[in-house]
């Protein structure tokens, strides 16, 4: 039972509010040490060893480590290393860390949760003997330091109570705060800096590399290259009086000396240029910005600038190339410009990349080049550089002092040899924050045995559709089949029209993934299956995704069905939802299905069903287009991958068949039907998907470029846009219309998940599909959104028990945030994987290919090679080319290069920089003497025939049910065992 503890109050002054909180002190908190015989520990509550062995040469006796907050914040990688054990984490420290950095806090919790690490968290703030009150005038920081010392002293005394033998573990306080160390020493507490401690650790080579570098205080201006950041209180005051603004910093991908920041109250992003303007902000940081007076505003330099390959030492290079760009541009192009004056919050994570070994043999200071171009290079210290030079490595940032050109960081771990498929995939997954660890025991424990079969009772609860001729149509090699279809005529007519029963049957994943289980949580956290070339990172374990849930041919499976009565004009007469048992007659590929439809000699049930579906789908689609749905384009290509090495061997254009569209239409119909139903039943917490109309400004450049080709496009509504896209055809250039659609795609917004309670009903609109409401229901095996929608629908139709989170609007909102984030990251990861494989493919080859100009920049053309869906810059030297800013054209010797031009380029891989191997585009045609690539130099390239995928007809299909509206050209990779899936996306990085 409870006992009342001494009662104290804490006061905290806000603006006007005085908050008084109760604070209970307890006498039943444990010290966690097995060496203690005072506390009533149960067996599993002794975390700390009786005789904690010392690994540090400075201390030759048994001791526990007690660590200060600054150690956790700056040296979390050291703590994550298995070397340190028997560590006491005080509640004071936990709370400070939580307050200052949630990411590190999570990592610390993880360490504490790992029993083998022997980290004990002691609740000193509620312990009657270790709680201290803040003295009048004492800074919170000093009070916390004192609390830490108090706890250290208490432990020392507490453990010595046993005292009989005199052998009890001592306490060593680890802190990098000199002042705290001094005060601790005065109190008789043994303490040590992390650096001293770690440098004297024996038996853990490599531990030292993880040591975070000491920080030069911001107010020290010795050798300073950068202006000092303002202090938090100066920033606070500046923001309050309107002189400064808070914003999120985004570094430019193309130009390392340029970035932007989004600031509330400014429609345009704030432009930040040069070393001083950026002043050590790193992509993602929350920064304080001072905005220049309007006459100093500039336009973003449209040049591509990369950091030098060599380490220039601690010098800032010439920025004139950047800053001399003309100021006299049209006012529409001018952006508010400013400079970073302080950092509000760093958003650093760990970065993958490679070591750029120092030129001096034996040196320990090296540069690290991150894989992400937006991140600057990092100075690290390591003694294993020879070993690491050929590896992909992970590095954490420590600080960026004023006197260092580069931020300082430390080595975390090696990921594997450069070029190694697994290491490269690991890089992609880490860089995109894709959870990809093996499924934990707890998750696997939620699974049914693999010989699981459907029980009789289960069948009784469901509609038995095993006798119906259901079949599935998917890409070749698909093992996670989540949808199947059927259609059959039903007797009678409505309004004189024939009627059909059409069913869409979706894998019943929620039967297996129960709410709030470890499996459910893991799936929710992953949110989506991620497809890389040759690798699939499942959202749910393989047993479910490829077996129990997958609607394989000839096997009885549980499904969630949506069944319509549809007349021959594709009007839906009524809709039913129910759980069912099905037995798919055939799991077909698109091609097989197409053959079945076309082969008139086939008169079996499957073929008849497919023909009905195909005919209805065409009508459905026409209706959709008439409503204003957009058909946007992306060239679709597939890699042929060597089944042994998983190396890409060839790419080819992907054929798109009627059957792709057939499946897609019915998935759309199912999604819309389900969306209407759940939004009606759960007006506050239904999970829906919307696609906002793009703001008109997005179209500016696009419309200008189209006008140059003689087309005035109407973008006022999706319907008008769709119509004018259809009409913009150049008979002489079959690819032109496709190109227009590719570029239109980039003007689009991203489609997002949202909870119905957060928006007004008119904002549910899906622009790309031109439908008032939409959701995702048809792919629960690989998307968590669909799992949630299944649960919502099941509780609407009484097919499953409800559960608490279904009504939780807050949960719905946070869920949507995570879903949107993971989906975006999955797309980026998929694209990165395609790029990686393209590089592998071009390792030993050179090709000359037709290309089109997507955009004209100051020093480059952005070109697209339709055959590969590859895009990149073709650099134009400024001494040869004249850039016309008004017209967006580049001119050289009378040759004019403009957007939409069709050119020929030579494509090769530049491997001089191992990290950023990049494709080099060189101009072949039009011929510009002295610049374009001379044909004769080409070593007999065997030229594959060039095909351009005609996408106008094929439209986009990607995944049949997601509506791809917005997509950049991409390469679709198909290998056995995987289904390539890509989703709607808009250009990255432009924002």
């Amino acid at each position, binding site marked *: *039972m*409870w006992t*009342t*503890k001494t*009662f104290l*109050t804490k006061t905290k002054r806000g603006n*006007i*509010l*005085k*908050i*008084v*909180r*109760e*604070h*209970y*002190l*307890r006498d039943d908190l444990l010290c966690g040490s097995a060496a203690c015989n005072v506390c009533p520990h149960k067996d599993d509550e002794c975390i700390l060893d009786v005789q904690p062995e010392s690994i540090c040469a400075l201390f030759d006796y048994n001791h526990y480590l007690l660590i200060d907050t600054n150690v956790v914040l700056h040296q979390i990688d050291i703590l994550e290393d298995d070397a340190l054990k028997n560590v006491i984490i005080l*509640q004071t420290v936990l709370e400070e860390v939580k307050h200052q950095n949630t990411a590190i806090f999570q990592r610390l*919790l993880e360490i*504490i*949760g790992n029993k083998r690490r022997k980290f004990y*968290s002691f*609740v000193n*703030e*509620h312990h009657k003997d270790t709680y201290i009150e803040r003295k009048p005038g004492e800074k919170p920081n000093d009070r916390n330091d004192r609390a830490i010392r108090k706890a250290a002293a208490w432990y020392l005394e507490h453990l010595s109570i046993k005292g009989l033998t005199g052998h009890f573990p001592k306490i060593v306080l680890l802190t990098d705060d000199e002042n705290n160390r001094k005060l601790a020493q005065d109190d008789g507490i043994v303490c040590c800096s992390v650096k001293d401690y770690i440098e004297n650790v024996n038996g853990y080579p490599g531990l030292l590399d993880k040591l975070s570098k000491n920080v030069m205080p911001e107010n020290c201006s010795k050798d300073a290259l950068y202006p000092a950041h303002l202090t938090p209180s100066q920033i606070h005051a500046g923001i309050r009086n309107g002189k400064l603004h808070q914003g999120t910093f985004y570094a430019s991908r193309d130009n390392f000396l340029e970035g932007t920041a989004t600031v509330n109250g400014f429609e345009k992003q704030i432009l930040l240029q040069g070393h001083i303007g950026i002043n050590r902000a790193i992509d993602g940081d929350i920064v304080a910005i001072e905005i220049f007076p309007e006459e100093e505003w500039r336009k973003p330099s449209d040049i591509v600038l990369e950091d030098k390959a060599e380490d220039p030492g601690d010098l800032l290079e010439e920025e004139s190339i950047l800053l001399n760009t003309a100021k006299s541009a049209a006012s529409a192009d001018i952006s508010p410009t400013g400079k970073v004056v302080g950092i509000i919050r760093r958003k650093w994570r760990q970065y993958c990349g490679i070591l750029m070994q120092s030129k001096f043999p034996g040196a320990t200071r090296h540069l690290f080049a991150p894989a992400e171009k937006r991140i600057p290079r990092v100075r690290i210290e390591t003694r294993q550089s020879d070993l690491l030079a050929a590896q992909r490595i992970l590095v954490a940032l420590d600080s960026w002092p004023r006197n260092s050109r580069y931020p300082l960081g430390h080595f975390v771990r090696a990921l594997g040899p450069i070029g190694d498929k697994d290491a490269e995939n690991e890089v992609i997954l880490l860089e995109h924050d894709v959870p990809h660890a093996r499924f934990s025991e707890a998750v696997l424990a939620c699974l049914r045995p693999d010989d699981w079969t459907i029980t009789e009772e289960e069948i009784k609860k469901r509609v038995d559709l095993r006798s119906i001729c259901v079949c599935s149509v998917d890409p070749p090699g698909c093992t996670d089949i989540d949808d199947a279809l059927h259609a059959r005529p039903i007797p009678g007519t409505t309004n004189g029209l024939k009627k059909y029963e059409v069913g869409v049957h979706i894998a019943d994943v929620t039967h297996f993934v129960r709410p*709030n*289980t*470890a499996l459910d*949580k893991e799936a929710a956290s992953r949110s989506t299956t991620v497809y890389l070339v040759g690798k699939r990172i499942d959202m749910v374990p393989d047993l479910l995704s490829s077996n129990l849930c997958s609607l394989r041919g000839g096997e009885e499976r549980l499904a969630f069905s949506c069944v319509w009565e549809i007349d021959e004009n594709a009007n839906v007469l009524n809709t039913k939802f129910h759980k069912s048992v099905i037995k798919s007659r055939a799991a077909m590929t698109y091609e097989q299905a197409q053959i079945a439809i076309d082969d008139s000699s086939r008169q079996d049930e499957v073929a008849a069903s497919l023909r009905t579906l195909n005919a209805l789908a065409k009508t459905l689609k026409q209706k959709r287009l008439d409503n204003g749905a957009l058909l946007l384009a992306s060239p679709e290509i597939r890699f042929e991958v060597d089944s042994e090495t998983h190396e890409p061997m060839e790419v080819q254009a992907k054929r798109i068949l009627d059957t792709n569209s057939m499946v897609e239409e019915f998935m759309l119909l199912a999604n819309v039907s389900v969306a209407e139903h759940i939004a009606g039943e759960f007006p506050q917490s239904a999970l829906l998907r919307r696609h906002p109309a793009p703001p008109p400004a997005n179209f500016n450049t696009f419309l200008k470029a189209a006008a140059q080709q003689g087309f005035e496009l109407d973008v006022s509504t999706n319907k008008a846009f769709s119509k004018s896209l259809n009409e913009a055809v150049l008979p002489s250039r079959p690819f032109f219309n496709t190109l227009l659609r590719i570029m239109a795609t980039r003007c689009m917004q991203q489609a997002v998940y949202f909870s119905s309670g957060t928006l007004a009903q008119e904002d549910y609109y899906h622009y790309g599909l031109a439908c008032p409401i939409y959701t995702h229901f048809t792919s629960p095996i690989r998307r968590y959104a669909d799992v949630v929608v299944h649960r919502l629908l099941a509780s609407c139709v009484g097919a499953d028990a*409800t*559960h*608490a*989170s*279904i*009504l*939780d609007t*807050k*949960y719905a909102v*946070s869920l949507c945030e995570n879903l949107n984030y993971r989906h975006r990251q999955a797309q980026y990861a998929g694209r990165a994987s395609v790029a990686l494989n393209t590089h592998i493919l071009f390792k030993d080859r050179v090709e000359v290919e037709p290309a089109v100009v997507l955009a004209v920049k100051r020093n480059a053309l952005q070109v697209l090679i339709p055959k590969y869906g590859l895009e990149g810059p073709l650099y134009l030297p400024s001494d040869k080319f004249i850039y016309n800013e008004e017209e967006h054209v580049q001119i050289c010797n009378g040759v004019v290069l403009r957007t939409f031009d069709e050119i020929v380029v030579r494509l090769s891989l530049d491997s001089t920089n191992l990290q950023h191997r990049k494709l080099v585009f060189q101009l072949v045609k039009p011929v510009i003497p002295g610049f374009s690539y001379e044909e004769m130099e080409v070593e007999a390239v065997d030229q594959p025939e060039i095909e351009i995928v005609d996408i106008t007809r094929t439209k986009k299909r990607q995944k049949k049910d997601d509506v791809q509206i917005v997509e950049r050209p991409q390469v679709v990779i198909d290998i056995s065992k995987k289904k390539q899936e890509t989703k709607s996306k808009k250009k990255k990085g432009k924002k």
Partner: protein
Amino acid sequence: MPGPDLLSSQGLRLDGRRPNELRRIRCKLGVFTQPDGSAYLEQGNTKVLAAVYGPHQAAKSKMSTEGVVVNCQYSMATFSTGERKNRPRGDRKSQEMSLHLRQALSSAIKTELYPRSQIDIYIEVLQADGAAFCASVNAATLALIDAGVPLRAYACACTSSVAWRGSQPEPLLDVGHVEEAAGGVCLTVAALPSTGSIALLEMSHRLHMDYFEVVISRAMQGCRDIEVILDKAVREHLAEGWTKQDIVTI
């Protein structure tokens, strides 16, 4: 489940209590001499005064032949919350609270003993720091005992909420203001613990059925714990005898 962590990884709440612990309750009977009965009660930082008049003859309009009419008036002092607010007596919230109090207390009082009579109960919340209603019920019970009104049982009230330990619900007893403000459900139970009957139930948000059982049973446990405390206070008060009766101490 989202929301701020109401429960630390060591299983303690923000103020250092375990999930099943009440806040500190201190109480005193007979703090005023003017009313027939009075009591002062602190539940954590929530502080409440209760005064009882009666039973006396009821006003004609309210008179009932069935039993005594319980008249409750609940009000909050201007200075009772962090933000000072001028609270006219009888605003909607106070009226609602008054009705709830009446419902909870009527079920404890042996109303049938005093037909055509009336009991007036005045509650003043001096400081509100979560669960003011519960403190009011508990204080009123003491005041009724002090006034010598026959009760069927102690009427005790307690709140409970729910926090999450991983995916497991962990009900929290006696919700403080900080926990209340963090959102989530707050279930208020007024009960006669010795008879096991519930006099009033109120819930602030929707809570899924699956968790209702654990949450209400924790609140009921709280009511039983409170009954023990109130009973002890009553016995001590009686043991003190009559000598200190007249000294007003708060």
